[in-house]
């Protein structure tokens, strides 16, 4: 950690350019073309524009990042597009900004996003709605790019909401099936809860900044003013951090708002890969890292962050142990891995959290696309108990999937070995030994459940039924090439962040140091680091060995253990009844209240008043209209009486 960098960001070198706007704009143009193509019969144009626009965005990103690298450390490339809001003291520009943290994010999003688009070419080949699919996918990438390129919180919020909408559209992509549409809605509504907290946090923040005389939500100003803010209103900072954290738990699928993510598997598999690996779920971690100078001011908030992360990591890992659906296993492992990232930023290792985000993007995209390849071959079947010995028919998928499993399990020298180790080490070093232990346990479980899936699906005896067996085939090149690229990335991605003193050391941490807050890490001895690494690796290998002996060496062991610990098995199988609990706790009362407002307040009270006024006027008129007899003499008599009375009144008054 380099504390001397923490306050140099303000006077950093800034390079202005109009290049950055093209990074989100290109996928957005792809989206526009896709939308129009979807309603014509020239749909095949999306085969070019869909992946092409993201590839171009990747190229522009590479150019932007190479410009950033010509600047001294702590510099940034900035593109001021237009003035968005200028009211009173609040001046808000639509500005895109690439600094060290954003450079990592845009390369992940556009790079891995492109591979997923490429893969989708093969995967969605037979779907009649592929134009719609690619346009949504482009919009998703565009939103996510806005999110990470934004230089102020409100602009982040545009992207934040954008990915929320896109996740809804993509999860419910096959909306003809009610279950898929429901899953989409669940994602939308769960996210909305987090977004509401995020908004409130933002409002409080701008109010507090206004009190300090700088009504601004730019990250530069926020992070510069953070110490004053902390001194002026420490409780406010904690409140803001916690509210933003709730927003992050929604997007990043942490306890208590993680429930949407397992259901999000209803979407097409490339969507799962895109949501889980490259984009949406990392938004929360990114946001906390981005606001790290604010978070370090509130140790209480950071402790909450770390605890949520660690507990989620373990909690999701236990649920992944018993799942039979390959994609569901990956879904829970995503929740668990993001738990690690949140734990990382929570114990002050912001670079560690983002490091794991980066490595996870590689191997999780790989695993999801591998699962998609399996699904493609198995005619949609995802139950790992109905697979087995797929290695014979799907060699590329098998090898790449194995690399992904090794990477996520944390086997050296693959990606997650370094990133997970960095987080666990930081947790231990900062004195959160309990959280470290929870993380370690979850690491063992991760290795176990991933290899359970691998052994059941790819090794052992084939349990594929005859009909499906007949169709088993390796996926076409557009699907296998991304797998191979991602497999290579999953191996090498971790090498940028080696432990201190080995080769180039923690180059990753040095690179990100100028933009992240430095949280004083307690120095721990080299021997302790070595010991911790050995323990983590040992636990990972132990998990793999356990999976091997349970599912490959002596099949049936797992069933016997499930029999033995029946209660725990049922608990895990039913996912702790959390969905049911939320249903009882929130949804049922909400439905009851809604029904009350519908049947009583709306149908009876409001409709009663509105219709009552109408009926009352009608009934009264019914009486009064009898006066209109139609006989002119009656009218004449009325005129006479009126004239007499009027004259009489005047006469009497005079």
């Amino acid at each position, binding site marked *: 950690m380099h504390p001397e960098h923490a306050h140099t960001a303000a006077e950093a070198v800034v390079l202005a350019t109009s290049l950055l706007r093209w990074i989100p704009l290109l996928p957005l143009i792809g989206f526009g073309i896709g939308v129009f193509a979807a309603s014509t019969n020239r749909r095949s144009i999306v085969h070019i524009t869909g992946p092409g626009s993201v590839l171009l965005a990747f190229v522009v990103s590479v150019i932007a990042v190479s410009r950033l690298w010509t600047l001294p450390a702590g510099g940034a490339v900035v593109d001021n597009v237009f003035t968005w809001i200028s009211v009173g003291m609040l001046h808000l520009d639509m500005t895109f900004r690439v600094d060290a943290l954003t450079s990592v994010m845009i390369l992940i999003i556009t790079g891995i996003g492109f591979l997923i688009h490429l893969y989708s070419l093969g995967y969605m080949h037979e779907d009649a709605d592929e134009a719609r699919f690619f346009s949504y996918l482009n919009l998703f990438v565009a939103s996510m790019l806005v999110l990470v390129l934004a230089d102020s919180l409100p602009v982040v919020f545009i992207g934040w909401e954008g990915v929320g909408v896109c996740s809804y559209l993509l999860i419910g992509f096959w909306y003809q099936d009610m279950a898929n549409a429901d899953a989409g809605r669940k994602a939308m509504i769960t996210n909305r809860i987090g977004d509401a907290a995020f908004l409130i946090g933002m409002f409080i923040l701008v109010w507090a900044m206004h009190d300090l005389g700088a009504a601004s939500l730019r990250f530069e100003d926020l992070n510069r003013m953070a110490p004053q803010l902390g001194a002026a209103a420490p409780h406010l900072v904690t409140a803001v951090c916690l509210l933003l954290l709730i927003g992050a738990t929604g997007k990043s699928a942490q306890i208590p708002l993680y429930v949407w993510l397992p259901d999000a598997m209803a979407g097409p598999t490339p969507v799962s890969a895109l949501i889980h690996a490259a984009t949406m779920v990392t938004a929360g971690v990114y946001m906390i890292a981005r606001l790290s100078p604010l978070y370090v001011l509130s140790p209480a908030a950071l402790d909450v962050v770390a605890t949520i992360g660690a507990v989620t990591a373990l909690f999701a890992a236990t649920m992944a142990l018993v799942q039979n659906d390959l994609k569901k296993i990956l879904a829970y492992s995503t929740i668990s891995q993001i738990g690690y990232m949140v734990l990382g930023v929570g114990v002050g290792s912001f670079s560690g959290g983002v490091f794991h985000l980066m490595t996870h993007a590689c191997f999780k995209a790989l695993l999801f696309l591998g699962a998609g390849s399996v699904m493609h071959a198995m005619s949609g079947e995802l139950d790992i108990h109905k697979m087995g010995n797929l290695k014979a028919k799907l060699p590329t998928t098998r090898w790449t999937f194995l690399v992904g499993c090794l990477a996520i399990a944390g086997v050296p020298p693959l990606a997650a070995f370094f990133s997970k180790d960095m987080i666990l080490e930081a947790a231990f070093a900062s004195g959160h030994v309990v959280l470290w232990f929870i993380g370690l346990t979850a690491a063992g479980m991760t290795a176990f459940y991933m290899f359970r899936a691998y052994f059941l699906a790819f090794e052992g005896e084939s349990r594929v039924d005859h009909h499906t067996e007949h169709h088993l085939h390796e996926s076409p090149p557009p699907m296998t090439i991304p797998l191979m690229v991602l497999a290579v990335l999953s191996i090498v991605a971790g090498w940028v962040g080696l432990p201190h003193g080995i080769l180039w050391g923690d180059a990753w941490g040095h690179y990100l140091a100028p933009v992240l807050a430095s949280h004083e890490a307690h120095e721990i001895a080299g021997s302790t680091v070595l010991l911790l690494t050995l323990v983590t690796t040992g636990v990972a290998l132990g998990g793999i060995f356990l999976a091997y002996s349970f599912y490959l060496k002596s099949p049936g062991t797992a069933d016997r253990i499930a029999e033995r610990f029946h209660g725990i098995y049922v608990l895990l199988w039913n996912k702790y009844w959390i969905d049911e609990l939320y249903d009882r706790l929130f949804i049922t009362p909400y439905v009851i209240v809604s029904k009350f407002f519908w049947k009583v307040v709306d149908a009876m009270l409001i409709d009663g008043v509105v219709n009552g006024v109408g009926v009352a006027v009608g009934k009264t008129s019914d009486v009064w209209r009898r006066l*209109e007899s*139609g006989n002119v003499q009656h009218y004449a008599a009325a005129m006479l009486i009126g004239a007499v009375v009027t004259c009489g009144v005047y006469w009497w008054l005079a």
Partner: protein
Amino acid sequence: MNVPVENYLVLAALIFAIGCAGVLTRRNFIVILMSVELMLNAVNLTFVALSRQLVSMDGQMIVFFVMTVAAAEVAVGLAIFLAIYSQRRTVNADEISLLRW
């Protein structure tokens, strides 16, 4: 012979009251129309009497207007009655109440 103006006014008031009663009580439209003429002429009488009393020609001016309008009114009224009669074979006020509730 000099008749005081009060006499004219009382006579006019009586004629007006008779006309008014006729309009309100008689059923036949022709008679009602005649009663309206009575009321108009009662007013004319007032105008003329007061014109002489006040030595001003204004009242007599208005009387000419009233007579012209009355003639037009009778023409229009009778035309309407003829049309109604050809449709409904009646000119009784209480039998013609088309614009009823």
